[in-house]
């Protein structure tokens, strides 16, 4: 059966006629199948298939052949004399194919005859096989008219119309709005990562204006703590940490980048700008210091300083990490698969992987042993000119002394550890190290003068270099083309490409991730995989709506946050509903809110606020709150942990010094990522080790004691104190049953404890219980 199909409307009438004339001749098709295709497959497919397009040319399908390649049209049915394809096979002219090996005359003649006869090909070879061409995520977002709903009064904005339409279609109704106190705690935890203070709670409860909630939202969005909360979220994706990772895992100065993210969030820097500065701030005209610091984003890759390594291997690892991270965070594409072979499911070829790699391969990082002393280069030295000069002199001195010590040990006979001279030298080195001038060496991007040639790494092996590649973007043909600013593609061009308003992926992926933070899962559940193996959106029109709003708002993240948290959908109560669960067990329709266990850092922050110990200071070097003894001595090099005693003891969790090989156990136990790879969604585990941490850890015992002191100071009766404790910990008053149970506990403890410090002990216990409640660590 030969069904005539016009394969590509865009190519016009001539093509349609050509197809009509010849594509379906039985004999021609058989000839192609038996004779021509084997020739092409053996000799051309290695470089010219629909999935592996070199020089822009694929000879695999009729559509691709007629489209031609980078040199234009290669073949015209019926006219072999005009066909570049035939000329190239004959090695006439400057294109000679296959390279270096002319085919037998008989084979060339067969191809020529086939072209002359009109290039008949069976149906299955006619249409181009570009994977993903009809996949939803590669289509431009469309604005659909808002759906009709029965309960239009419930909807506060467009989000609600889309959500309600699905709820109604399932014969459900939305949940009522959460009570005011719950709502305030929820939106505070979500927008600034801190629970409301009592003053904020009282003010909100007393405010009866119809827009009281919107006013609170605006206040929270204007709070400097907003920047901290959403910076931490971004730092998960940036795989931020304060140390190098791998074996030595020495400290590095990454915090200037972390502070840049906080500032950018607080300033509501448009997301396109935000991306451009992080990818290529250094390449912007008259780049500012801040713009250079921003490029720390892709310098958050782990780096290896172990003896005996091949630095090139770890440099290549870092570049590959940048490619994978870019794919997951911005494109929702699982680029990593294409490191070793063409992607099996998505339109990313191995060549495209290394084209992306080529953009990020030119940073002036060390790649050989001789440059070991320049480890972690390039830096941006932050400090006065004099400080930087002092720093360089100091560093030289330290290295000289270390060399001396090593040489001395090397020549020593006997037990070196007992030698007085060695002890003295080590003491001197210790003293010198402590005199480090106050220069901060931020890790940043800076390109080499001589660009590195990039290659396809066969099988992903850094030693097996295949064909050379130049910078280029993935999913070509399905994503917008790259626009060049200069002659050659640069990181800046890549960044601009990522945030083109017509890019089908970046805005969708970004708004989907924001949505995920508020409801526990995205509209697309697989937030880092928008490819053909990922989940489809539950609310595709809503996703498109949000993506388009995001771009049209000037890429304002605050505007997106505002739209989501002011929706009726967000404001619903989170109470479980049997009726809804019966038809929608996973609550994908959002007929209620979801209860979410707070992030690791926020549990700490909420404890600090409840106890009154919270230090509100923004930014600066990372800090050392208490850590359980021995928790950071699991690595090769034992690192000192000078536990903070002043205000730095009570800083937000996000400022805790984060060592990759031994992250603070209080954070790790609550699923904080370890910074080895980009994390686009934290798992929420629920374990007994979490219970042990909140019950027994030194830091949490201290929080409980402070909360206890606070309520004892501010109120006299048990009931009043309990009420205060509830307000501080949960931003609500206790219910009758809760009060009864707590008071019973307090009385029993009082009976059990005698002596002068009885009240302190009794209330320390009660406060400890409050800070261990499930509700305390949950965003209701």
């Amino acid at each position, binding site marked *: 059966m030969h069904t005539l199909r016009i394969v590509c409307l865009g190519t016009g009438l001539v093509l349609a006629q050509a197809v009509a004339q010849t594509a379906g001749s039985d004999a021609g098709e058989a000839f192609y199948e038996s004779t021509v295709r084997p020739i092409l497959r053996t000799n051309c497919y290695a470089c010219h298939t629909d999935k592996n397009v070199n020089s822009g040319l694929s000879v695999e399908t009729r559509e691709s052949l007629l489209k031609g390649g980078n040199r234009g049209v290669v073949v015209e049915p019926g006219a072999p004399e005009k066909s570049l394809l035939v000329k190239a096979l004959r090695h006439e002219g400057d294109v000679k194919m296959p390279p270096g090996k002319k085919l037998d005359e008989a084979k060339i003649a067969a191809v020529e005859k086939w072209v002359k006869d009109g290039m008949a090909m069976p149906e299955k070879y006619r249409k181009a096989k570009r994977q993903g061409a009809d996949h939803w995520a590669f289509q431009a977002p469309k604005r659909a008219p808002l759906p009709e709903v029965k309960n239009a009064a419930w909807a506060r904005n467009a989000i609600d119309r889309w959500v309600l339409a699905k709820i109604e279609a399932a014969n459900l109704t939305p949940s009522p709005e959460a009570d005011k106190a719950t709502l305030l705690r929820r939106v505070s935890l979500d927008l600034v990562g801190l629970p409301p203070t009592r003053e904020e709670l009282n003010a909100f409860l007393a405010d009866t204006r119809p827009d009281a909630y919107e006013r609170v939202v605006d206040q929270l969005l204007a709070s400097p703590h907003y920047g901290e909360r959403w910076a931490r979220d971004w730092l998960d994706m940036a795989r931020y940490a304060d140390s190098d*990772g*791998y*074996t030595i895992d020495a400290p590095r100065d990454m915090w200037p980048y972390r502070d840049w993210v906080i500032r950018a969030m607080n300033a509501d820097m448009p997301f396109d700008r935000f991306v451009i500065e992080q990818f290529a701030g250094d390449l912007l005209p008259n780049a500012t210091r801040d713009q250079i610091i921003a490029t720390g984003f892709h310098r958050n890759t782990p780096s*290896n300083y172990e*003896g*005996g*390594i091949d630095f090139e291997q770890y440099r290549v*690892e870092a570049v590959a990490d940048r490619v*994978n991270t870019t794919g997951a965070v911005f494109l929702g*594409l*699982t680029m*990593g*698969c294409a490191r070793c072979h063409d992607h099996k*499911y998505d339109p990313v070829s191995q060549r495209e992987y290394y084209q992306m790699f080529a953009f990020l391969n030119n940073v002036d990082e060390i790649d050989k042993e001789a440059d070991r002393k320049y480890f972690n280069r390039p830096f941006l030295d932050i400090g006065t000119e004099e400080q930087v000069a002092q720093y360089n002199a100091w560093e030289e001195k330290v290295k000289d002394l270390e060399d001396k010590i090593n040489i001395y040990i*090397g020549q020593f006979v006997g037990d070196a550890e007992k030698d007085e001279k060695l002890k003295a030298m080590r003491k001197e080195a210790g003293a010198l190290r402590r005199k480090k001038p106050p220069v901060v060496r931020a890790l940043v991007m800076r390109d080499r003068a001589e660009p590195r040639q990039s290659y396809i790494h066969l099988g992903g092996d850094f030693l097996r270099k295949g064909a050379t590649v130049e910078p280029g973007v993935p999913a070509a043909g399905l994503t917008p083309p790259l626009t060049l600013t200069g002659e050659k593609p640069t990181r800046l061009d890549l960044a601009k490409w990522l945030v083109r308003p017509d890019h089908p992926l970046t805005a969708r992926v970004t708004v989907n991730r924001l949505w995920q933070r508020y409801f*526990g899962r995205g509209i697309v*559940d*697989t937030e*880092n995989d928008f490819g053909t*193996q990922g*989940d489809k959106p539950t609310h595709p029109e809503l996703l498109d709506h949000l993506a388009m709003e995001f771009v049209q708002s000037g890429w304002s993240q605050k505007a997106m946050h505002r739209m989501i948290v002011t929706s009726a959908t967000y404001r619903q109560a*989170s*109470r*479980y509903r*049997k009726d809804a669960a019966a038809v929608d067990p*996973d609550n994908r329709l959002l007929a209620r809110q979801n*209860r979410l*266990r707070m992030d690791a850092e926020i549990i700490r922050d909420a404890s600090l606020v409840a106890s009154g110990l919270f230090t509100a200071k923004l930014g600066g070097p990372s800090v050392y709150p208490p850590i359980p003894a021995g928790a950071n001595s*699991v*690595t*090769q090099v034992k690192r000192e942990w000078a536990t903070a005693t002043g205000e730095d003891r009570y800083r937000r969790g996000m400022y805790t010094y984060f060592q*990759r090989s*031994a992250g603070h156990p209080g954070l790790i*136990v*609550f*699923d904080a990522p*370890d910074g*080895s790879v980009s994390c686009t969604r934290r*798992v929420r585990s*629920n*374990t*007994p*080790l*979490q219970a*042990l*941490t909140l*019950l*027994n850890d030194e830091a949490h015992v201290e929080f409980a004691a402070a909360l206890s002191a606070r309520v004892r100071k501010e109120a006299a009766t048990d009931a009043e104190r309990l009420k205060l404790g509830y307000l501080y910990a949960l931003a609500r008053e206790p219910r009758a049953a*809760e009060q009864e149970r*707590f008071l019973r*506990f307090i009385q*029993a*403890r009082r009976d059990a404890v005698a002596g002068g410090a009885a009240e302190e002990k009794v209330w320390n*216990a009660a406060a*400890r*219980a409050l800070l*261990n*409640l*499930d*509700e305390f660590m949950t965003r209701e």
Partner: protein
Amino acid sequence: MTYDERYMRVRTRRQLFRDCGVGVGKAALASLLVGNTMGATRKPHFPPKIDSVIYCFMAGAPSQFELFDYKPELQKWDAKPAPDAFMKGKRFAFMDTFAKETPKLLGSRRKFQQYGKSGLWFSDLFPNVGSIADDVTLVSGISTENFNHGPAKLFSNTGSVRPGRPSMGSWVTYGIGSESNDLPGYVVLQSGPRGPRGGAALWASGFLPTSYQGVPFRSAGDPILNLSTPGGVDGHEQKSTLDLIGDINKLELAETGDSEIQTRISQYEMAYRMQSSGPELIDFSKESAATMEMYGAEPGKASYANNCLLARRLVERGVRFVQLYHADWDHHQDLDEPLTSVCKEVDRPTMALIRDLKQRGLLERTLVIWGGEFGRTPMGEVREKGKIGRNHHIDAFTMMFAGGGLPPGRVVGGTDEFGFSPTGDRIDVHDVQATVLHLLGLDHEKLTYRFMGRDFRLTDVAGHVIKPLVS
């Protein structure tokens, strides 16, 4: 049985308690699953041959030539330049020490003898291990991928040289949970002068939930971080506080209906049980003097001997995966005194662990693994005048196994007469991992987790079960 991120999200919501690295005992399970609509527990893919694994990781890479790879031919060639074929196209760590001049072959200075009915060879550094020769299986000619310690350790543990993947113990507890109802399913013990290079990445759960992470037990202080009740709080207060927390949480459960609260309640109950089981675990007072003597264990001491005894006690209590790290074996400079002293620390406890498991009838259902991240070269390395060591070698190293129904008293695989290259079928670290999973009833190709759009495995895209070990 393919689990992925989506499943995991449902899982945490629906409280599949057995999934947690800290498993739930059978009795407790019934009470925890009340009201749970999805009460499936993790079953292995096929009937397992073992219940537990004790992996003695010798960080730094022991020299196989000084312990159990007897190479008389290498001794004959001692001090002669290594054949060109050894060096051509090969890459070593610290190339510069080999680059100056062609390295010379180094015959072992140790005395070797055959032990037991099996006649396995062991050196004079391993007399105690030699005494149980008929209970161990040596796998020789194993290859790995990277010649630097950190990455190679990651590779042994996670199947990848880069940090960020789950470790073997995490995969195992994720796959089949644990039998212990009051101890973590995956425990890490450390001894030696320093922690293993790579740190927590070696027992991290990667993209799996942190409940599958290895829990480091410390040899001093609390065995588990924050296990003991804070100062000034007595047992009665701790109990009544936990009762209060549980009761208030139950009120919240009634109020919201969120089953996650039920999980929280159970985890607090388990934390309380751990507070008593932990101290009991490390209390050696009920061990006989003969047992203490056999291991060379001394109460309260941070030693490999104590850790071996602890490993047996953990396995007895249903813990699934115990990993011991002992540093440091990186003998570039000197194969004499430093190697002798580390062998003294390790030889007897290793024997004791295997013998003790056997006499208690636990060895059949426990797999003991002993080995480093790679091996060492048949060529000597001179970094210091008058001393000689060996460089890293990744093409052919030896690991020791015991228990789990493996053929005892045998050498599987093999190397050439210089111990430079494997003879026979290639065996690599992924194969070892596939085999361990196989013994636990898990198919390494089916134990997957979807992350960033890809189904990840412990064995990446490689690995074959080592047939001579399991058939």
